[in-house]
């Protein structure tokens, strides 16, 4: 029985624990792909010191669940875990985790990339960064839209 786990939380997670959960009781799948997104110290030439993430509770979880459903329709994948943090984050902190298992690597690679690309343009999260110039809500990147469109 394949499992989907979606968590939207302020607290950090332990990468190895999440990997163990994806692999537990699962000898059917030979591939595990994980992606971690972290807070960078730079953005468009500015030195970033902090990141604040806001989200739309309820819609976020629905949206992430829908993205997993869409991934399952396109690839033969096993267990899936998406964790996205919100609130105040520091440099180097984890922001997002996507983990997916599959029998063979290609499905897990594709599904992980698809889920990240869609999450970036669909899930209702907003980032506010602090730089030497003060606080600023980030504008959406056109390149993220293009990355997502390549799957349609």
């Amino acid at each position, binding site marked *: 029985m394949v499992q989907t786990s979606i968590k939207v939380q302020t607290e950090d997670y332990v990468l190895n624990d999440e990997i163990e959960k994806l692999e537990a009781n699962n000898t059917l799948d030979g591939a595990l792909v994980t992606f971690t*997104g972290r807070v960078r110290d730079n953005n468009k030439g500015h030195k970033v010191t902090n990141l604040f*993430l*806001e*989200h*739309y509770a*309820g*819609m976020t979880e*629905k949206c992430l669940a829908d993205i997993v459903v869409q991934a399952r329709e396109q690839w033969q994948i096993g267990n899936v875990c998406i964790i*996205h943090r919100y609130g105040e984050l520091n440099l180097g902190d984890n*922001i*997002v985790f996507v983990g997916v298992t599959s029998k063979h690597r290609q499905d897990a690679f594709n599904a992980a990339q698809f889920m*990240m690309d869609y*999450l*970036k*343009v*669909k*899930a*209702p*999260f*907003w*980032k*506010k960064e602090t730089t030497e110039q003060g606080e600023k*809500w*980030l*504008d*959406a*990147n056109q390149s*993220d839209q293009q990355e997502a469109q390549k799957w349609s």
Partner: protein
Amino acid sequence: MITINVLFFAAFREQLDCGQLQLNVSNDLTVADLKQQLAEKGSKWHTVFSSNTLIIAVNQELVEDEHRLQDNDEVAFFPPVTGG
């Protein structure tokens, strides 16, 4: 009359200094009508509702201006998303 719950997020929430608003509005109101009503609340509101990047969700599903509102709807206004 119907009662709706209006939510604002991120930059819009800060610009308006308002995260949530409960409103009694007339039946058969569309999202476009609601936007127009809210825009008339003052200059900050006018600025937010003049934004060409305003995204609208009703009951947590994306909708367009023509969408007709119903009693107890949750209507959210937010800028383009930037998570991940």
